[in-house]
């Protein structure tokens, strides 16, 4: 129990008539409150209990992830990606989120979480479709149970709750893990999703990657709460605070929360403290709102470096292992680069293909119009450049023809 000031309640034992029972808080708040310090394994005695295999797996994934981020950023410079929001510095959260889930579970990523999707097994080219710009979602969400990357902030959270709730109603063993940023916690959808999850006791875990910024806005302008994890008690779910750059710690906290949800224990809110090393996206200029010194300070708390220290202590960071890990990462990057350098096959008629299960009359008309335009364009392109402009003019028939009476 928390220490509570019981002002003026000295006569309350003999209070009469007894107040109606609806008044009793039904839940003890103490276990729902986060620790004051973020949970850490690396650099503490408890790190020793983590298995070698998990540490090396995390390490391989972190290195791959760092390389993936660098490659994706490079692709923006080559004009192969429309935009890329990097998760450099946040790889521990991304990787731990992916590894904490079982195959049948669902991941709900935001635009910044392609790495989590890749770590879960998604083809990186498919993961980057949205950001390349050839389609909105490049994969079938059912295949790896990864919801479409979500751009409108926090709107994916109620989806995760609904899906988890539906799975539970069907009796399926499924947990949903949803990612959101520190900025996203300010949105109404965050609030509504967490409340629904708690009231329904849905098997869902919310991971807030608190990377200190929402584009240019620092956390201090986003919230003055003791921590974002302190929001959990207001919904009646546990809130956990973890060092987001400590991969085994994030993994442990998330795995516990996922398994708790799986056992019917309801939702958990996890806040991982991390830092966005790169700008918001390649298009952003971070020097406008933060200092290099701050970035450097966080580079000193790098998730890969932290893990390497533990691996070194254990004698696991052999040259051969490091080389193998690097090679794997390079292979990923090279494959990504090569495949992203191919132009995607695009069919403009797809614009009309998936709006409804059955195309409406309106869309059939509009598709016919575009088809006619494209055919005219193709004809025009075949003819020489000197030809009269607008070869197809008048042939498009988008609006149903009007016969004169």
């Amino acid at each position, binding site marked *: 129990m928390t220490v509570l000031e019981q002002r003026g309640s000295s006569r309350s034992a003999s209070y009469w008539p007894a107040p109606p029972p609806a008044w009793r808080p039904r839940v003890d708040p103490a276990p729902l409150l986060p620790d004051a310090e973020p949970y850490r394994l690396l650099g503490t005695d408890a790190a020793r209990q983590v298995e070698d295999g998990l540490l090396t797996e995390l390490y391989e994934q972190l290195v791959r992830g760092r390389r993936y981020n660098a490659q994706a950023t490079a692709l923006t410079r080559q004009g192969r990606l429309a935009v890329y929001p990097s998760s450099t510095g946040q790889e521990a959260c991304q990787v731990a989120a992916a590894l904490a889930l079982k195959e049948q579970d669902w991941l709900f990523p935001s635009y910044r979480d392609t790495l989590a999707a890749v770590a879960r097994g998604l083809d990186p080219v498919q993961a980057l479709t949205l950001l390349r710009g050839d*389609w*909105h*979602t490049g994969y*079938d*969400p*059912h295949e790896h149970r990864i*919801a*479409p990357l979500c751009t*409108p902030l926090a*709107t994916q*959270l*109620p*989806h*995760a*709750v*609904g*899906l*988890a*709730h*539906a*799975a539970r*109603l*069907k009796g399926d063993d499924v947990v*949903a893990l949803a990612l959101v940023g520190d900025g996203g916690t300010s949105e*109404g*959808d965050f*609030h*509504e*999703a967490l*409340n*629904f999850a708690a*009231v329904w006791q849905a098997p869902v875990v919310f991971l807030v990657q608190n990377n200190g910024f929402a584009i240019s806005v620092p956390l201090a302008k986003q919230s003055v709460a003791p921590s974002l994890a302190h929001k959990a008690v207001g919904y009646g779910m546990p809130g956990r605070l973890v060092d987001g750059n400590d991969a085994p710690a994030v993994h442990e906290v998330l795995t516990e929360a996922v398994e708790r949800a799986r056992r019917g224990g309801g939702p958990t809110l996890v806040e991982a403290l991390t830092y966005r090393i790169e700008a918001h996206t390649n298009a952003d200029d971070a020097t406008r709102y933060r200092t290099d010194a701050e970035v450097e300070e966080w580079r000193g708390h790098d998730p890969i470096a932290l893990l390497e220290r533990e691996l070194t202590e254990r004698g696991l960071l052999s040259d051969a292992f490091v080389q193998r890990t690097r090679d794997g990462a390079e292979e990923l990057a090279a494959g990504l680069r090569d495949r992203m350098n191919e132009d995607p096959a695009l069919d403009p008629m*797809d614009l009309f*293909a*998936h*709006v*409804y*299960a059955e195309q*409406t*009359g*309106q869309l059939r008309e509009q598709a016919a119009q575009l088809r006619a335009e494209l055919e005219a364009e193709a004809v025009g392109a075949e003819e020489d450049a000197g030809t009269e402009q607008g070869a197809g003019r008048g042939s498009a028939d988008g*609006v*149903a023809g*009007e016969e*004169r*009476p």
Partner: protein
Amino acid sequence: MTATATEAGRKPASMAQALNRALRDAMAADPTVHVMGEDVGDLGGVFRVTDGLAKEFGEERCGDTPLAEAGILGTAVGMAMYGLRPVVEMQFDAFAYPGFEQLISHVSRMRNRTRGAMPLPLTIRVPYGGGIGGVEHHSDSSEAYYLATPGLQVVTPATVADAYGLLRAAIASDDPVVFLEPKRLYWSRADWSPEEPEPVSALGRAEIRRPGRSATLITYGPSLPVCMEAAEAATAEGWDLEVLDLRSLLPFDDETVCASVRRTGRAVVVHESSGFGGPGGEIAARVTERCFHHLEAPVLRVAGFDIPYPPPMLERHHLPGVDRILDTVSRLQWESDWTEGSGD
């Protein structure tokens, strides 16, 4: 309450009862149909459309949610992603607005976003329109917002039979449907049986409710009875008005509408929603695009004024009534007597 409609054969029923029966039959036929919203459980909804469902199917199939419309719609999206068919109730038109981000950015786009891999078979029931003496925010006609959102279907019944048939069709649809329920017709009654003419209506078809030769009144939902009344009154003026009930606003039944207007040569669109930027503009524009040379006069509109919905004591001045419809019909550039195909 709905007992009279449970036996076969045509029995008197209200629109609310027909909607209730549609939900019940859909839930019985398909275990993935889930009803959710504010007060839809024990209370049976503020309009009693979900009456008895919680008792019959259990709270998990028809349950009260916390009070948060974006949350309701957003969790319903997630449920639909997992294969359920949620039927969401928004308590009143204006209280659907908090869910608009979910509606526009997700409900309408999920199928397209995923190239068809993740359809959302979701029905969103929205009681809409005025004429019930409701205080502020209880009488909005919000259909223009839905119409401007590609990926949605927008359907509204005007008869007891359609309330049943269209709601069944909406729930059966693999795509999201905004199902607009005209509040002031909830208690309208008709003899009706859920088995006839067809248990599930096709979506996207307009219906001629009254054939006529002089002009076409194009309308839907709460304004249908007003138009029928106006058409009766118009006979005294020598006008034989055709009345067309759109039923589905999106997709739009160009074929039926244009065939009628080509026949009559004149049209008036009637709806409660504000005129400016309302459905009538789209309807008049597309009819004109397609039937220009058949038109003896511009397509005119009778709509709510371009004002926030009025307080109860003044709403009658806002709502399209018989007189305003007939006034407008009179401005369709008639010759001294009605003759076919005069034109300019």
